[in-house]
C-alpha cells in the first residue's frame, strides 16, 4: 500500500526502535543509498560534482554537526564558520606534514630553542578525521562558557570564537605555512591510487569520498542521538534543571555535545577546503556568513532531526543552483537579480518557518505522517 504507519506491527523492541520503522521508508532509503553509491558515479560530471553533490555532502555534515549542538542539546552556536576553519587548517597542516615546535628553554644567546617534530604528510582520510578531532578539542574549549551562560549570551560567546579563530588563521603564519599569499592550498593526495584532492582529482573519486564520509557519519549521528547520549542532550535542551535531578551531568553532557558537534563541523571544514575548493583564505571562506548559512539549513530543515539536517543542506545548496538555471539560464535575467530574489526567498522562508514550524521541514513531514495514520477517517 502507500506510505503510512498504519498496519505496520512490531513484535520486538528492536524492530520498534529501528531507524526506519516503516517498510516503505526503509526501501526508499536503501534505494537512494544504492543509487548514490552504484549508479550516480557513472554519470557524474564536473558541474554536478562541484555545484551540487560535494557542496551538499560538505554542508550536510556541517548541518548535522550544528544540529547536534543546537537542535539536540539546545546550545546556540554562531561559531560554525570558525570551527570549519579549524578543521580546514588542521587538515592543511596534516596533509603538508605537521611541524610541532616544543620550546626547550633559552640557549646561550638568549633565543628560544625548540625541539622540532616533523610528521610526514598523512593520508587524506586521517587528515579529515584528525581535522575533526582537533576541532572537537577546540570546540570543547569554546564550549566551556556554556556551563554558565545560556541562549543569547552563549550565542555571543560563540560569535567571539568565530571572529577570534578567523583572526588567528589570518595573523599567525604558522597555520598557512608562511605562504606569501596567506592562502592555504590543498596538495595532491590519493586514496587507493585515486587522486582525492589537488587538480587531478576526478569527480567520481571526490564524489565517492565525500559521500562515504557523509553516509558513515550520518549513520553514527543517528545512533548517537537515539541512545543514552542523545537523550542526555535532549534532556539538557528541554529542561536543564530536571535533567540534572534525574542524574545528567550538565558539564559532561554539554561538553560532549560541543565535542561531537565540532568534530562533524571540523570534518565539513576539512572537506570544504581540501576536496571542494582546493584552496581557502579564512576571511572569505570561513566568515560569519558560513555560520549563518549552516544555521539557516538546520532551521529550515528541522532542529533536532538528522534527516532535517540533510533536507536543509540540500535545500540551501540546491536553491541557488535552481535559481541560476531557471532565471538566468532559462529567462535570461541578470545574475544579480536572481541572487537578490534568492536572498529574499530564503529570508522569507526563515521567518515563516520560525513562526509557523520551528522544527522545519522534518516536522512538517512528521505531521503529515501522523495525519496519514488515520486518513481518510477523522479519528
Amino acid at each position, binding site marked *: 500500500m502507500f506510505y503510512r504507519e498504519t498496519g505496520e506491527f512490531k513484535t520486538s*523492541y*528492536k524492530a520498534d*526502535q529501528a531507524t526506519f520503522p516503516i517498510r516503505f521508508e526503509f526501501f526508499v532509503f536503501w534505494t537512494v543509498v544504492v543509487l548514490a553509491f552504484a549508479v550516480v558515479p557513472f554519470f557524474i560530471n564536473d558541474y554536478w560534482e562541484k555545484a551540487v553533490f560535494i557542496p551538499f555532502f560538505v554542508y550536510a555534515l556541517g548541518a548535522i554537526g550544528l544540529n547536534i549542538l543546537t537542535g539536540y542539546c539546545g546550545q546556540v552556536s554562531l561559531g560554525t564558520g570558525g570551527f570549519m576553519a579549524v578543521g580546514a587548517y588542521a587538515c592543511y597542516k596534516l596533509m603538508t606534514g605537521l611541524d610541532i615546535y616544543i620550546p626547550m628553554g633559552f640557549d646561550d644567546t638568549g633565543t628560544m630553542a625548540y625541539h622540532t617534530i616533523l610528521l610526514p604528510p598523512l593520508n587524506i582520510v586521517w587528515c579529515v578525521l584528525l581535522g575533526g578531532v582537533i576541532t572537537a578539542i577546540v570546540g570543547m574549549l569554546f564550549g566551556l562558557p556554556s556551563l554558565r551562560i545560556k541562549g543569547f549570551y552563549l550565542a555571543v560567546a560563540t560569535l567571539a570564537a568565530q571572529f577570534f579563530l578567523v583572526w588567528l588563521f589570518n595573523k599567525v603564519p604558522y597555520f598557512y605555512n608562511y605562504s606569501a599569499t596567506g592562502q592555504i592550498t590543498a596538495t595532491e593526495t590519493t586514496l587507493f591510487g585515486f587522486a582525492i584532492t589537488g587538480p587531478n582529482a576526478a569527480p567520481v573519486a571526490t564524489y565517492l569520498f565525500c559521500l562515504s564520509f557523509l553516509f558513515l557519519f550520518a549513520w*553514527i549521528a543517528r*545512533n*548517537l542521538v*537515539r*541512545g*543514552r*547520549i542523545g*537523550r*542526555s542532550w*535532549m*534532556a539538557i*535542551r*528541554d*529542561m536543564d*534543571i*530536571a*535533567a*540534572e*535531578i*534525574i*542524574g*545528567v*551531568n*550538565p558539564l559532561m553532557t554539554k561538553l*560532549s555535545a560541543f565535542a*561531537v558537534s565540532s568534530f562533524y563541523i571540523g570534518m565539513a571544514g576539512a572537506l570544504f577546503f581540501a576536496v571542494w575548493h582546493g584552496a581557502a583564505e579564512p576571511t572569505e571562506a570561513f566568515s560569519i556568513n558560513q555560520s549563518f548559512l549552516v544555521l539557516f539549513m538546520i532551521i529550515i530543515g528541522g532542529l*533536532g532531526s538528522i534527516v532535517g539536517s540533510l533536507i536543509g543542506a540540500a535545500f540551501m545548496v540546491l536553491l541557488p543552483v535552481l535559481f541560476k538555471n531557471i532565471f538566468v539560464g532559462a529567462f535570461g535575467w541578470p545574475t544579480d537579480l536572481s541572487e537578490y530574489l534568492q536572498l529574499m526567498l530564503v529570508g522569507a522562508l526563515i521567518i515563516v518557518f520560525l513562526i509557523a514550524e520551528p522544527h522545519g521541514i522534518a516536522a512538517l513531514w512528521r505531521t503529515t505522517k501522523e495525519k496519514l495514520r488515520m486518513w481518510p477517517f477523522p479519528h
Partner: protein
Amino acid sequence: MNAFVRSDQAAPEDGIKAGEVMLRVENVSLAFGGVRAITDVSFDILKGEIRAIIGPNGAGKTSMLNVINGFYHPQEGEIWFRGVKRSNMKPHQIAHQGIARTFQNIALFKGMSTLDNIMTGRLTMMRRNMLWQALWTGPAEAEEIRHREFVERIIDFLEIQHIRKMPVGRLPYGLQKRVELGRALAAEPQLLLLDEPMAGMNLEEKEDMSRFILDVNSQFGTTIALIEHDMSVVMDLSDRVVVLDYGKKIGDGTPDEVCRDQTVIDAYLGVSHD
C-alpha cells in the same frame, strides 16, 4: 506485579530494613540573603513509609525537598542518607545515590515522547560509552532493549500505553503528571520525592494518582516523601506527617496526632493575636 523486579544494575541494597531510618535531616537551616526559608528543622524518613510534608503556603516545603535532593545547600545542619552523612553534592550525584523526584510545576522534557521521557529516568544506569553508542549494533542496542523492557513495565503499571509515542507537550495535565511519576520511578529510587503530585487535578485523577502512589509504596517498597495540600489525601496516604510553618517544624507524627495538634490547627486556620 512481580515482573517489576529490580534489574541487575540497580543500586545495591545496603542492609537497611523496613522501619529503619532512610534519611535524616538534622537541624537544617536555609536562608536566602535575609529570608530564612528553613529554620532548624529536624525529622527523619523511615524506609518503606510514606512521609508527608505539609504546611501553609511559603512554609518551606519545596525548599526542604530542594535541600534533600541537593538543589540547595543548607547553611547549617546535616543530612544523613542511608546512615551516611552527606557532603555537599551536586543534584546529579544525588540522583545516582537513589533519590528521584517530581516537580510541582511539571518538568518534563517537552520535545521528547512519553517513552523517551521515561527512558531518561534510566540514564543513571546506562553505561555504554560513546563509541559503542556510535556503533549501536551490539552492546549499546542490547542495553537499550534491556532498559526499554523495564520502562515498558512502568508504562503498563501507570496505564499509559496508548501515549507511549506521543510528544509529552501535547498530553493533558493529568497524564503529564503521570509520565513525570513514571520518569522518577524508572530510576528505581530508594527515596522518591513527590512535590504536590495532585496539584490541579480533578477528583478522578487524584484517585488514580493516590492509587499509583500506594501501589509504588506497597509493591516496590519505595520510600516516599510527598508534599500535598489536599488534607484528605494526606491523611489517607501517609504514615507520618511533618508540619512546617514559616520554615519551622511545628508538628510531627501520625496523621491523627497532627490533626489534633493545637499548633497545627492554629497555623492552618489562623489564630487571633489580640
